[in-house]
């Protein structure tokens, strides 16, 4: 980890950095009573207008937008001079939200080092797995064709291991006769939950004893079995990056808050019965 990166992940440094940025944004002390209407403003109004209405504003519409902007700017500054932004729940919430965004951006964005990604992948291997799959062939015994489809299935099952063996044929069905590499979720979507869990219990290849579904009773031959397996770092890299970004953002947000909180003395002045309820 580079010195810069380590520094950048220190909450206090982040706080100072944000402070510096906010200052840089606001520019030199906002004492000036200048309001600049320039091409930049026109550009941003036009772009917004274009996106909303699929056409640029007319001159009259542009004039109106600029007038509104000016009015809002003047009133906002007057309001701030009068301190109206203090104790305004909406403004406070919005500012707190922006700080949260800023903090999480500092923490999570950007490219991670390969070592960092690999370490994260190793630590959280359970998040990055490929589900087990089976390949199968199935035949169905229905109530329409058999008075006791279960019995018919057992008879056919016994015949598989008889000498000579008989491969069961079953009844005509709209269900797929074979599937390759199906997950438990795939099986459930097509055959229902009982069938899926019955097949996923298979420990080896070959014919399974009869399994019931809401379509009838099935004989299933497992033709391939691929157990769930952890994804290698190369396979999971995109997901690792996304998960790590998410985790870092949440961490940065929390770190930042905790660091900032330490700079305040919080005075709890509550009657005893309310203390437990306090945040």
């Amino acid at each position, binding site marked *: 980890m580079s010195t810069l990166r380590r520094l950048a992940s220190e909450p206090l440094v982040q706080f100072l950095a944000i402070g510096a*940025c906010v200052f840089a944004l606001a520019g030199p002390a906002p004492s000036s009573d200048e309001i600049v209407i320039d091409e930049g403003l026109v550009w941003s109004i036009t772009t*917004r207008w274009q996106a909303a209405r699929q056409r640029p504003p007319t001159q009259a519409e542009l004039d109106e937008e600029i007038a509104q902007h000016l009015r809002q700017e003047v009133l906002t500054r007057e309001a701030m001079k009068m301190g109206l932004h203090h104790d305004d729940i909406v403004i406070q919430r919005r500012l707190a939200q922006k700080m949260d965004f800023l903090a999480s951006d500092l923490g999570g964005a*950007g490219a991670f080092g390969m070592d960092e990604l690999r370490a994260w992948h190793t630590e959280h291997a359970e998040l990055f797995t490929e589900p087990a799959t089976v390949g199968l062939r199935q035949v169905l015994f229905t109530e329409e064709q058999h008075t006791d489809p279960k019995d018919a299935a057992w008879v056919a099952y016994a015949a598989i291991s008889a000498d000579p063996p008989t491969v069961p044929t079953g009844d005509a069905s*709209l269900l797929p006769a074979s599937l390759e590499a199906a997950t438990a979720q795939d099986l459930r979507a097509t055959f229902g939950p009982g069938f899926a869990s019955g097949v996923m219990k298979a420990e080896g290849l070959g014919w399974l004893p009869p399994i019931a579904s809401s*379509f009838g009773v099935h004989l299933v031959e497992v033709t391939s079995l691929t157990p769930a397996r952890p994804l290698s770092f190369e396979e999971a890299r995109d997901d690792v990056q996304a998960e790590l970004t998410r985790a870092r953002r949440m961490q940065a947000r929390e770190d930042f808050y905790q660091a900032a909180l330490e700079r305040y003395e919080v005075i709890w002045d509550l009657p005893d019965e309310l203390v437990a309820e306090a945040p």
Partner: protein
Amino acid sequence: MRHAHPLLPFPALLAFACGSPEPKPEDVQSEAEAQLDEEEEVAQDAPAFPTRPLFGDTHLHTSFSFDAGTFGARLEPADAYRFAKGQEVTATVSGLPAKLSRPLDFLVVADHSENLGFFRALKDGDERVMANEYGRKWHEAVVAGGQASVDASIEIIKMFSQGQFPEELTLSPEQTRPMWQEVIQAAEDANDPGRFTAFIGYEWTSMPSSQNLHRVVIFKDGGDKAGQVVPFSADISDDPEKLWDAMDAYEDRIGGRVLAIPHNGNLSNGLMFALTTQEGRSFDADYARRRMQHEPLYEVTQIKGDGEAHPFLSPNDEFADYETWDVGNLDASIKKTDDMLAGEYAREALKTGLRLQTELGANPFAFGMIGSTDSHTALATADSDNFFGKHSGVEPSAVRASHQVISGEAGELYGWQMTASGYAAVWAHQNTRASIFEAMERKETYATTGPRMVVRFFGGWDFSEEDSAGDVAEVGYDRGVPMGGTLAAPGDGQAAPTFLVSVLKDPEGANLDRAQVVKGWVDAEGKTHEKVYDVVWSGDRVPGEDGKVGPVGSTVDEAKATYENTIGAPQLTRTWTDPDFDPARPAFYYVRVLQIPTPRWTAYDRVRFDAKVPDGVPMSTQERAYTSPIWYTPNEGSP
């Protein structure tokens, strides 16, 4: 003051000012590219034809919709996607854990574009809100919660739909941009090509005089393209042609693809399938083609009633009166009259389309069909035994059935009238944005009222009875066209079209009663007709002299909310030939599938919550599916 460009989001500004590690535009681009790469990687394994239908909801609201939020929803798009993927979330008002029995394959979060995010401002008591008399009142009601919040919501919707919504409280499209970015981000995060598709979308909420013309707009593209526009708002125009203009502009300028799906013609008082444009012009071929290019599908069933058929229009169809909402327009301010119905229901519109096609040379109503929920809870539920209601004020409870949901001069609609419906089934090759979107464009879709039945439907000229004995897909695609298609011209000696109809029950649901073919046609005098054929049914029922098969019976125990699969069939399949075919007349054919009767959601509520359900409220239902039609046009040519 140093002028800051308001367009740039705050963190981007920071990056600009300080060179922080915020991703540069190239990084954003490469993220979008990575998503595309993943789609393409998955696409390499595409099967020759779709092997299983993908089930999803194209029409779900979250708390970002101004009405959903006021009704009490607090769940956001990210929660909606998590729920659709099969994870558990907590329903807002009831606090009940909510989880689907099985995950969905795709989801479109379609929040109202108008005032997108208004609810957040209302809840927070935004300055602009508090400066307005209504805003203050509604804010207080929302903070109070419960019935006060629901009442406020009803008032908001009413004023909005009457065009009386206070102008000072209306967010401009541009002011909704931050929320739109959040909508996009949630979809991008949830999208997982090959496993789960999260579409970017919104609802355009046009309703002149509360006559419902709403359309859900769906993007094929990712945030790199969809993020370059903001949703088109009915505040700018309530004319669908203007929406199409905006869609064209997006496609031309940004190079993306987008389609619109109308819904709730049943609350449009005849306007949805009116015979003139919104400006009052007569239709012409250009209009017809333009409409179908932008709106290939119609959402035929959802929470606010079923829109396939109406008993007044289809008096010979004993199943036409299904979850019918025909009191009036969206807020029941204008009473419905019989002459409005022809402009409201899908089957009638499909028939009218055939007539217009003979007159104009193009069919403005050649749409395919899907269902969706239109839930305002962020919970895409359509199962009767797991139904979370239209909005958060009617989440499962002892009293929701007797709640008034709409009330106006024309009449009232009550909670028990909500329909636990529906989902969109799409025959896509793969579970990706591109593949599902393309299947929607070719109308290879069907609507279900909730159950995940597998319905295949192919039309051709030489299908035999053996062709429908097993899996019909291979022969169907090889020698015919699937649902949504148009029959090729017949060959020599081919006298009538043949159809493969094949249905599997929901593997976790009820057996099937029957599959029917609904045929519509127009005669030489330009008069339209319809006929419903029972094609294949369970058991040994014998059709009567009128050709109709009697009821399947019922195993529903209403007091216990249970049923048995001891009647009906798990699968139905048959090859059917049109016995009344006239090669000179245009026609369409679609399949309607009926399940055996099962308990309606009201029965489950009564058992679970000891709910007070008014006398006479239906306690069982026959859930169903409707496929997109297959069209026949004399001397070929697409409709």
